[in-house]
């Protein structure tokens, strides 16, 4: 009986959940667990050996990369979402940046109704937030009305509040919320794969440098990068990346 324990990013939930399920279906003798805690904590868990594989929805930072190996499993778009009732369909990176910095506070300034903009963000430490703020150049200056602890939560709030804007992982996208195009480009697999959709970040499998992976963990990583896994990743809404 082997076990594979993974721990980390909540935005990778769907991806890793699907992979894990397919993996357990394939090998009867392994138990696969996924603990959706967040990228930061997944990285720490990998470092402290509390899990076999850490899951991060952002690239490892320099000091983290000293002790850890990060392998990019897939690319994920970060979709800027609004309530389906919102008339705004497209925003530029600059507009997004101004909105989240609180410089633009009404939807009418970006072509929408005359209502206040309600900013929904993720909590400090989230890989999604880190990726979004880095790319839109809003690091540390977002004026969030709410800081929520998961992708699902952001979707719920945005879907319930006509004034809200937030950002979520493409993998989790559904029609409860509306994704806006960024500089005319919609977040889709091709646009992410070729880099024309700007707001994207990697999904990374994190392991301890130099440490021997358990048999199960090795099997899982091999599985994740196999041809067999590709359709699963695509179905989960992300763009697979070949193992380097």
């Amino acid at each position: 009986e082997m076990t594979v324990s993974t721990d980390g990013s909540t935005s990778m939930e769907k991806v890793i959940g699907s992979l894990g399920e397919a993996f357990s279906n394939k090998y009867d003798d392994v138990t696969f667990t996924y603990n959706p805690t967040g990228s930061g904590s997944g990285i720490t868990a990998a470092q402290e050996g509390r899990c076999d594989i850490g899951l991060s929805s952002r690239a490892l930072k320099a000091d983290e990369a000293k002790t850890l190996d990060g392998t990019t499993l897939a690319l994920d778009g970060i979709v800027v979402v609004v309530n389906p009732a919102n008339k705004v369909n497209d925003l530029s990176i600059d507009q997004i940046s101004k909105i989240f910095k609180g410089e633009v506070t009404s939807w009418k300034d970006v072509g929408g109704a005359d209502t206040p903009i309600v900013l929904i963000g993720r909590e400090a430490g989230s890989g999604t937030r880190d990726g979004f703020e880095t790319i839109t150049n809003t690091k540390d200056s977002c004026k969030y009305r709410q800081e929520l602890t998961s992708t699902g939560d952001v979707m719920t709030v945005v879907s319930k509040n006509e004034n809200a804007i937030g950002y979520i992982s493409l993998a989790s996208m559904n029609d409860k919320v509306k994704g806006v195009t960024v500089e005319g480009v919609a977040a889709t697999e091709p646009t992410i794969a070729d880099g024309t959709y700007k707001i994207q970040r990697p999904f990374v499998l994190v392991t301890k440098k130099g440490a021997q992976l358990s048999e199960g963990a090795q099997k899982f990583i091999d599985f994740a990068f196999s041809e067999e896994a590709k359709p699963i990743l695509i179905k989960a809404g992300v763009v697979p990346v070949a193992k380097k």
Partner: protein
Amino acid sequence: MLKKQGTGINVEQIAHMVFLFLGIINVGFVLVICIYLVIAGLPAIKEIGLVDFLFGTKWASTAANPQFGILPFILTSIYGTAGAIIIGLPLGFFTAVYLAKFAPRPVYKFVSPLIDLLAGIPSVVYGFIGMLVLVPGIQVIFNLPDGSSLLASILVLAIMILPSIIKVSITAIQAVPEEYELGSLALGATEIETYYKVMVPAAKSGIAAAVVLGVGRAIGEAMAVMMVAGNAPNMPSLFESVRFLTTAVASEMSYSSGLQRDALFSIALVLFVFIMLINATLNLVLKHRGKN
């Protein structure tokens, strides 16, 4: 004939030792919790500086230039708790007096299981319903851009502490000797006058205990509030999204690292100190009651 007890250890002595150990172990648990919290909580306070930590008004734990001021959380916790008491206490108190003294037997028999049920509902259920009903409701009623707010948290907390306030108050009121009641009635007071002017004052330390208990519950609640407060680290304001001491810990803990993580443990330490102060107050109240 009466055999003397040998020096060997017998079952009775073993039993005594085991039970002694089981009793003492509770003290051990408290000590371990204290020690761990202090060990985990002090480094960040040392690094940030106690004054900056407690009285800083800005919390930006992952910024390039991180800031760790928890005054907004402290104030939010205090305001939120106070608000919950202000709403929950009168509601609970009048209900308790009614149930303890006026309710006809069938009404009492019907309502008291309801209150038990209310007490037994897990806090996340309150948070869940609050999130679906209260938050949108507040947004519409007060015409706000968003309903997640201190007010929503206060209402959820008020409902959550209601059953414990009711139950403790009922016990306190029922414990008042009947002689006071008779004495007052015999002077020509009506039943309502009797209950509110004699029975309730006589039960006041018990009711005070109920309040302190409610404060403890409200200040320590995390999950339910997390679902309705919005969790932005703002200075508290009734219609703004806010973060409590508990939710500050809960929302960032799983993502945290380094000084941020240490600072979260420091917040937990602050919360713990608050709770210990409240417990000490409760003890005083109860002791005072014991004397009367």
